[in-house]
């Protein structure tokens, strides 16, 4: 999936932003970039389910790797 950013600028001045296709912490870099681009400050931020699933998957892979290494050392 291509990496994208979708922005909504409302008539009340509020800006809503969503990063698309960024499943690692790269998306966090865009908090500061968007604040500078828009001369705005972030008042709310949430990770989407896609991001959390990717984080959980990465954690599980790391745990499996640690377990395998422990087993190798124990032999």
């Amino acid at each position: 999936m291509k990496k994208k950013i979708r922005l909504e600028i409302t008539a009340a001045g509020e800006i809503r932003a969503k990063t698309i296709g960024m499943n690692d912490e790269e998306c966090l870099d865009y908090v500061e970039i968007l604040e500078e681009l828009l001369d705005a400050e972030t008042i709310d931020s949430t990770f989407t389910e896609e991001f959390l699933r990717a984080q959980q998957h990465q954690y599980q892979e790391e745990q499996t790797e640690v377990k395998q290494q422990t087993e190798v050392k124990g032999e």
Partner: protein
Amino acid sequence: MSLSLTLIPIAIATTSIVSYALQGKVEEGAYYKLDTKIKDENILKEALENRGNVVSLDEKQIESSIGNVEIVFQRQEDETISAIFHEDVSLEDAEAFLKNTYEEYTRIVQHNTYEKLIERAKNEGLLLESETRNEDDTLVLTFQVKE
């Protein structure tokens, strides 16, 4: 999608829930003050002029008049700008005036935000892919991130 953000332009205060509120009486009750979320005096001046006000801006305050009604805007300690009305102006009229002024103010903020974004995005590797305006006047822009 991986991260959702809500941002407020620095021209708008984030501290107050309402866009304007009765703050209190000033100068022995002859005038009263209404607080706003407005922070940028130049945008405020433009908004007032767009709505037919005659406006003068100096270092301390903005003086605005429409018909025979004069309104003074002063910056507060929290960086927001409050409006001061003479007691002859009803609270209802003052609130309606501020509501209309604030709507014009945020319309200008929206336009300025869009202009800045279009001007600066390329430097951050963001390429505009699509742009639409919804029925509620929300601008929706999608950028591709250059890798």
